[in-house]
């Protein structure tokens, strides 16, 4: 269900499911951050508690696995953005397996993923201009020869589009597989086992099928795609600021 209302010459469409889910996930992440922050001791020599160890592991993972290729200075300024992107996309992808009626993963909406990709694209320009200067950043589009300008621009566009489409397509594909599995299974069982055996076998096989599909498309693919999105975002910003 999509709400539409006219705003001057254009029509604005809002998807309440996506908006609600992403707002809820943002609030949850905010609560998690505040909860973890209370654990940071005033004395740096104090032995870490269990919650602090979780926080340390998270920071260590982002710094040493995702941002390992960047320079020390860039790593410090990129860390908040990349960690936020990773946690937000991961929580969005994993929310698809929650058994809440009407719950869809926000990353299943092209507007969310393309918005995040456009944010990263804008930030590549911001970081490029900040580290290289405005003139040298614009000049980098004329390299190696000025004739390459249209090629570079089209390459930028394709990169940003595929950045957004990749996450969207993966999560949507998983959701379609999950939605199609039970009807297809019911049909197959009815056709090959007959109605009596099928009603007996369907609860067992249906549970197994949805467990396997949720584990693979929800947890595994969701985690990998969140990782890939943030790794690529870090790589794009890093190449622009070199």
């Amino acid at each position, binding site marked *: 269900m999509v709400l539409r209302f006219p705003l001057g010459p254009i029509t604005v469409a809002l998807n309440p499911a996506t908006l609600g889910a992403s707002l809820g996930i943002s609030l949850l992440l905010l609560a998690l951050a505040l909860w973890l922050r209370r654990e940071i001791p005033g004395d740096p020599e104090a032995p870490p508690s269990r919650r602090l160890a979780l926080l340390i592991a998270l920071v260590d993972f982002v710094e040493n696995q995702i941002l*390992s290729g960047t320079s020390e200075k860039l790593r410090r300024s990129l860390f908040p953005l990349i960690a936020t992107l990773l946690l937000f996309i991961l929580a969005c992808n994993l929310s698809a397996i929650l058994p809440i009626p009407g719950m869809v993963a926000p990353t299943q909406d092209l507007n969310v993923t393309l918005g995040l990709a456009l944010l990263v694209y804008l930030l590549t320009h911001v970081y490029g201009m900040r580290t290289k200067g405005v003139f040298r950043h614009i000049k980098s589009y004329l390299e190696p020869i000025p004739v390459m300008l249209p090629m570079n621009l089209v390459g930028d566009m394709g990169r940003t589009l*595929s950045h957004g489409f*990749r996450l969207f397509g993966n999560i949507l594909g998983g959701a379609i597989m999950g939605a199609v599995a039970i009807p297809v299974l019911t049909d197959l069982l009815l056709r090959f086992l007959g109605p009596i055996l099928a009603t007996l076998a369907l609860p067992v096989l249906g549970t197994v099928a949805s467990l396997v599909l949720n584990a693979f498309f929800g947890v595994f693919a969701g985690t*990998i795609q969140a990782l890939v999105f943030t*790794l*690529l975002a870090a790589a794009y910003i890093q190449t622009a600021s070199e």
Partner: protein
Amino acid sequence: MGPEFVQALKYLAAGLCMGLGALGPALGEGYIGGKAMEGMARQPEMANTLLRNMIIADAIAETTGIYSLLVAIMILFVV
């Protein structure tokens, strides 16, 4: 050439699009994975870096497969 014929061609087109579109990424990802395994076997201390780069390369190789998925979905539900 009734609407049923068009509908049948749509299903055929979506199936072909997905099947042929998945072929390239599958070959590419297999090649990337195999080469990464080779590298990891030769230099186990590099395994973490190799795994990270392998996942990025996999995701990029997968992009064309995702495009064909989107085209198949568009053929089925939008056009």
